Structure formats: structure tokens, C-alpha cells
């Protein structure tokens, strides 16, 4: 009897190795009958998401969800809902993302899928952070971290730690941010995940700089930037550049801050990622204002407010409008 082989095996291997472009090519070359299956749609949705193609990712995930539901596969449905939600998140449809992550979390609890519970909790934390609901975000990260840790999933602990560090920094609680980034870095190293090491280093650097360790902070963020560039992490690079820009501004190097912020903005706009764009515009606006470039600052504040509003993050949009008016 011939051995049964998984037609998606090569694509899965490419995904596991982080070679998402290769995975996309492999998936596209598969026979039509394979490309009509739920598994193909789900894997393709995951790959599209990793490549920053959020709209196709969401379409494919919703297709996968419908196919899984049709055949009564709750586990498949749960995974498809999670990716669909992530697609909505990438597109800035926060309320859709929140609704779908909650649905996936509910299914994960019913199925006792602890890893998915952790992932959905982490994602719900991200939605709450975007909506400026910091306490809720930290609550979800707390749950996600505990589950990831119990499962021995270092990547997940690191990712959750980075998210918690970003949340604490947003609150101006830099000691807590430093602790969260410290833990994230340890787990990222344990999990041998250079992309996460880069992000954790950048967040540690930001926290240390805010605590008065500007020189060490800058060195760490620069190391983080080098790592995320080497990993070709399109999502993380503009964010780390933005952090480096804020450090340059704090150190009194306005021109470097402006250059870094503009570089970050070009990357964020190419990525069409509303959250990153909004944050970069906000920091660019502050830099321009500090340098006395008020018209540019006004435009950037307005762009940031619009981007936050697109995300459904009314609180953040209002804060931008207020900051713009405070010239």
C-alpha cells in the first residue's frame, strides 16, 4: 500500500523554517484540488499574514473556516477563526478582530487546547492595547504568559513579554517595562528566536533609556535593529527604527530623530499596517514639533489621529487631536 503523504508537507516545512516567501510559492504551485481544501486555505492564510498581506490572509482564513464548519471540524474552525481575527487585526478592524479572537478563545477552552488559549489571550491583549485599554491588555498577557510557560513554549512567553513591555512603556511605567522585556529576552534566547531577541533588546533599550541609561539603551536598540533587519522582519523594523528615533530626540539629536522617523514611516506605509503607521506618525509629529517644524508636526498629528481612528482606537485618536491642538 502506498504511503499517504501530506501534499502540504513542503509548504509546512518552509513555514516552520520561517521561509514564508518560499512557502507562498510552494502553495501556489500545488494542484487545484489541493488548493480547494480547508487545510490549504488555512496554511495560505497564515503565510499571507506573515508576509503582511492581511486582506488575502483574512479572505483565505474565512474560506477555511467555512469549509471546516461544513465538515463539523471544530478544531479546524477554531484555528481558522484565530487567523481570520489576526487578519482583521492587521487590517485595523479591531472590533471584528476582538469578536473573532473571543470566539476562538471560547472554542479553544471547549477543546481544552491550551496553546490556542494562550495565543488567543495574547492576541486579545494586543487588541486591548490598540484600543488603549491597558489594564485589560495586561490581564490577557498575564494569562497568555502563564499558559505559554506551562507548555514550555518559550517563543510565546517571549512574545507576550514584549507585548507587556510595550504596554507598560505606553503607560510610562518603565521599571515594569524593563522587567517584562528582561523576561522576554531570556525566553527568546532560550527559544533561539533571533527575531524575538531583536524586539526584546529594542524594548529593553527603550525602557533603560527612559530610566536614565541613555547610552546603554541606544546600544541595545541598535543591536535589536540589526537583528530584526537580518531576520527581514518587516513588521518589527519600522517599530524599532521609531524607538531609535525617540531615543535620538531625547539625546538632543533632532536631525537623527527626524531621519529615523521618516525612514520608519516609509517602511510602515509600504507595509500598509495602520497601527505601525499611526505610531510612527505620532512620534514624527513630536519630533517635528521639538525641532520647531510646526506645519509638519500638525500634518503628522492629523495623520496619526486618522490612522488611530481607522483602527477604531477612539481614545488614541482623541489624544492625538488634543496633542495637535496643544501647539
Amino acid at each position, binding site marked *: 500500500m502506498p504511503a499517504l503523504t501530506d501534499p502540504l508537507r513542503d509548504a509546512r516545512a518552509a513555514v516552520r523554517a520561517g521561509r514564508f516567501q518560499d512557502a507562498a510559492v510552494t502553495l501556489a504551485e500545488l494542484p487545484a484540488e489541493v488548493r480547494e481544501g480547508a487545510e490549504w486555505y488555512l496554511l495560505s492564510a497564515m503565510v499571507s499574514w506573515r508576509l503582511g498581506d492581511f486582506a488575502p490572509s483574512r479572505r483565505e482564513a474565512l474560506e477555511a473556516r467555512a469549509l471546516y464548519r461544513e465538515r463539523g471540524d471544530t478544531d479546524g474552525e477554531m484555528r481558522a477563526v484565530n487567523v481570520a481575527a489576526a487578519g482583521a487585526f492587521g487590517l485595523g478592524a479591531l472590533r471584528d478582530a476582538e469578536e473573532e479572537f473571543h470566539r476562538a478563545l471560547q472554542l479553544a477552552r471547549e477543546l481544552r487546547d491550551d496553546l490556542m488559549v494562550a495565543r488567543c489571550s495574547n492576541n486579545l491583549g494586543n487588541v486591548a492595547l490598540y484600543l488603549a485599554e491597558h489594564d485589560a491588555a495586561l490581564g490577557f498577557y498575564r*494569562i497568555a504568559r502563564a499558559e505559554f510557560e506551562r507548555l514550555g513554549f518559550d517563543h510565546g512567553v517571549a512574545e507576550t513579554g514584549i507585548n507587556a513591555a510595550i504596554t507598560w512603556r505606553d503607560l510610562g511605567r518603565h521599571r515594569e517595562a524593563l522587567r517584562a522585556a528582561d523576561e522576554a529576552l531570556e525566553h527568546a534566547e532560550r527559544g533561539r528566536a533571533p527575531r524575538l531577541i531583536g524586539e526584546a533588546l529594542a524594548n529593553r533599550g527603550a525602557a533603560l533609556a527612559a530610566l536614565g541609561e541613555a*547610552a546603554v539603551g541606544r546600544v541595545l536598540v541598535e543591536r535589536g535593529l540589526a537583528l530584526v533587519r537580518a531576520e527581514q522582519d518587516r513588521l518589527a523594523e519600522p517599530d524599532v527604527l521609531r524607538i531609535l528615533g525617540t531615543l535620538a530626540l531625547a539625546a538632543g539629536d533632532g536631525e537623527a530623530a527626524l531621519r529615523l522617523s521618516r525612514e520608519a514611516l516609509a517602511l510602515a506605509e509600504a507595509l500598509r499596517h495602520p497601527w505601525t503607521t499611526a505610531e510612527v506618525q505620532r512620534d514624527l509629529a513630536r519630533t517635528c514639533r521639538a525641532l520647531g517644524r510646526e506645519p509638519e508636526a500638525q500634518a503628522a498629528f492629523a495623520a496619526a489621529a486618522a490612522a488611530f481612528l481607522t483602527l477604531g482606537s477612539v481614545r488614541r485618536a482623541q489624544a492625538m487631536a488634543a496633542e495637535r491642538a496643544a501647539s
Partner: protein
Amino acid sequence: MPDAPVLAILTLSGSFASVWEDAAREAGASLRAVAPDDEPDGAVALLVAAGGEEQRGLDLIPALADRWAAPLFLVGATASHRFAVEALRRGAADYFALPEDADLLRRTLTARVEAARTRAGRAVPDPGDPFAELAGESSSLRETLQRAQRILRHGDVTVLLGGETGTGKELLARALHNGGARRAGAFVAVNCAAIPGQLLESELFGHEKGAFTDAHRAKRGLFEEAHGGTLFLDEIGHLPLALQGKLLRALDERRVRPVGATQDRAVDVRIVAATHVDLQTAVARGEFREDLFYRLNVVHLVLPPLRERGNDVVLLAERFAAQLAVRYAVPAPRITAAARTALLAHRWPGNVRELRHAIERALLLSPSGVLEPDELMPATRSPAAPVSAAGGLPFPASLDDVLFHAARAAVDLNDGNKSAAARLLGISRARLQRLLERRGGADAGAD
């Protein structure tokens, strides 16, 4: 399919057998009668000592808790809080006074058997040495870790951790979890000082949909998330008074009620709490409930500050330098003799965390391969205080501080031998022990 978990029963006296027979039936566990010399490998062990045998039961606990792998519950007829705390201190996982606690005992046994069944179905990694991250050779640290090691055998005992910021309280809490029987469960950590008081109740106990304005959905609390595992309550001294009563109830009854709910939910959670403040003082000021303090303070472990750990500061500095050199791909630096002296002289108010940051800074900003005092200390400059052999006695110091430091220095000088230390100081060993305990370095007999 795995065998049904075993409920091991050692009966000294008393009746109420229907309670655990019902519990075993409900949980699908088999009952097994055991003798004191047996070593049952069950999910739960019950020591029944009602009807005037309570004291004998208490006396048996330390030996049984040391030898038996299963968590040991004492059952008696004395409804006394003090008696219950004494049972926990001697190593019991809990105490139940019958007939009042019959329902609670039934629920607890059912939950334990279910948790044991869940754990049996999970692959639990070997934790290795759970205390490996708490490195050091000073007698003060070793004492704390040795006592922590003994606590691992006591399974579910509630632990209160003390120590200054940066001494490693969360690391120790994790070690107690990872080295204990609950390691297959979740370790959920929450800093009570980091969450606004009005949100903490919902965070700990959960809420129902519509319980308050922003409660668009029902949410599980951290007690439920930690079911079968450990809930680490950091900075417990910041818990608002109104919540302290609810926490006490959750600990006593092992049930929580989410905000807006009408029914309780059973939880099986081990509590490890930590504080850097003196809770007894908080009790005296009326800021912390006395009954909750005693419920948490079953075993009290204190992590010593770095300045009282003698040469550990150098040992740790070398360890961090080696680790961080790998992280940042630079040659492992040499710490000069002058730098060692500076490390020993500094007071390290931020303790181990501060030391690690100091080494990291030096490594990143002066990657010369040699760590000198100027490179290590620039950002950790704290007022230079006179330094004693014990590693930094503040000046002016209280008499308690002076006596404690003298006692600690004598113990360090004698490699932890307290009898020799007492002879050196010309006092009795008991007096030395009292001096060491005055600063909160001991529990009331868990070991």
C-alpha cells in the same frame, strides 16, 4: 487508560467515613486504607484524627509529610484557626474540622483527584534543579534555599516570601512551583501593586457579563486560570483591605465568586505570596488583616539582600559577566581586584537585579575585556556608607540592625556553623537564633 487515582486513608480514630467514601465515588477514585509505616503512592492522603486524637495526628504529620509523596490532609473535630495553622506549618496540605467542613472536604478531595488525573495525562518535564537560578554560596542564601527545598515535599503549603526588591522573590516562587507536585499546572503571577484597586477584584476572581460598565463579556479570574497550579501574589501588602476578606475566604473555602455572579466556583490553587514590606507592622497599623496574615504566613522564607551575602556579589558578577558576554558576543571580561573590592563595598539597594544591570552596562559601554571599578559603578553610585565585614551596615543603624549584622557576620565567618558562631560571640546558640530571626528570617517550624 491510566488507573483510577488512589485516595489513601490513615485512620487514627473517628467516624465520618461516608464523607471520603462519597468523595472517592464522585471523583472515580479508589480508597485504600494505609498504616503509618506505609508509603502510599496515591493522589491524596487523608490522616483522620477526630475524637481526641488530634494531637497525635499533629505529631505524626512531619514524618508522614516528609515520606509520603501525596498531599496530606488532616481531619479532626477541633474547629480552631490556630490548630489549622499549626497543621499546615507541620506539613499538612490542609486541615478540615468535621462535621462543619464536610462539604469543603468532599469538594477538595474531588478537585485534587481530578487534578491528579489531569496531571497524569500530561507529560511533565523534569524540572532539574528548580533553584539553579538562585545562585550563591553565602550561608544566608543557602539556609533559605535549604528550607525551600524541604517545603517542596510539603506540596501545597502556603508560602509568604520576604526580601527587598531585586532579591529574587519571583524566581523563588517559580522554583517552588517548578520543583513541586503542581508543576504541570500553570504558574500565574500577579503584582497586586501594579493593578488599580477597583480592577483587582475582577482580575483575581473574574466577572460576569454586565457586572459593571465595561464588562461586555464574562471573564475568568486568575484564581480559575491557576486552577491545578500556583497563584503568585506579589506585593501582597498592597492588596486593598476590602479585597483581603475575599482573598481569605477564597483561601479558606477554596471557592471564588466572580464579580456579578450568584454562584461560587471551586478552585484548586496553591498560593505563594510575596512582600517587601513588614506585614506584621501593617497588621499593627490596621492596614492588613491579621487573620489573612496568619493564613498566608504558614511558611515564611526571606531572601537576604545582596549586601548581606558576602562574597556572593563577586560570584554573581562573574556569572553575569560570562552569561552576558555570550549574549552580546564579546570576550568574557576579567573583573579586577579593585573592581571586586568596589563590588563588595557597594550597598546594592536594587540587589541582584541592580548588579546584573551594572555588569551589562560595563560590558556594553567599555568592551575592553577588563572590568574596573569606574566601569562598574558609575550609575550605581549610592551614598558611600561605612561597610562592615558583614557586607554593609547602614549608618546610623538601629541596635537591632547592629545585633543582626553581628550575628550574620559570625555565621558567615564560621561557614554557616551556628554553634561556632554563638561561641565566637559569647552567647548561647538559642540567643543567636533569636537574633537572626528578629529580622524575619525564619518560619515557625515548617522544617
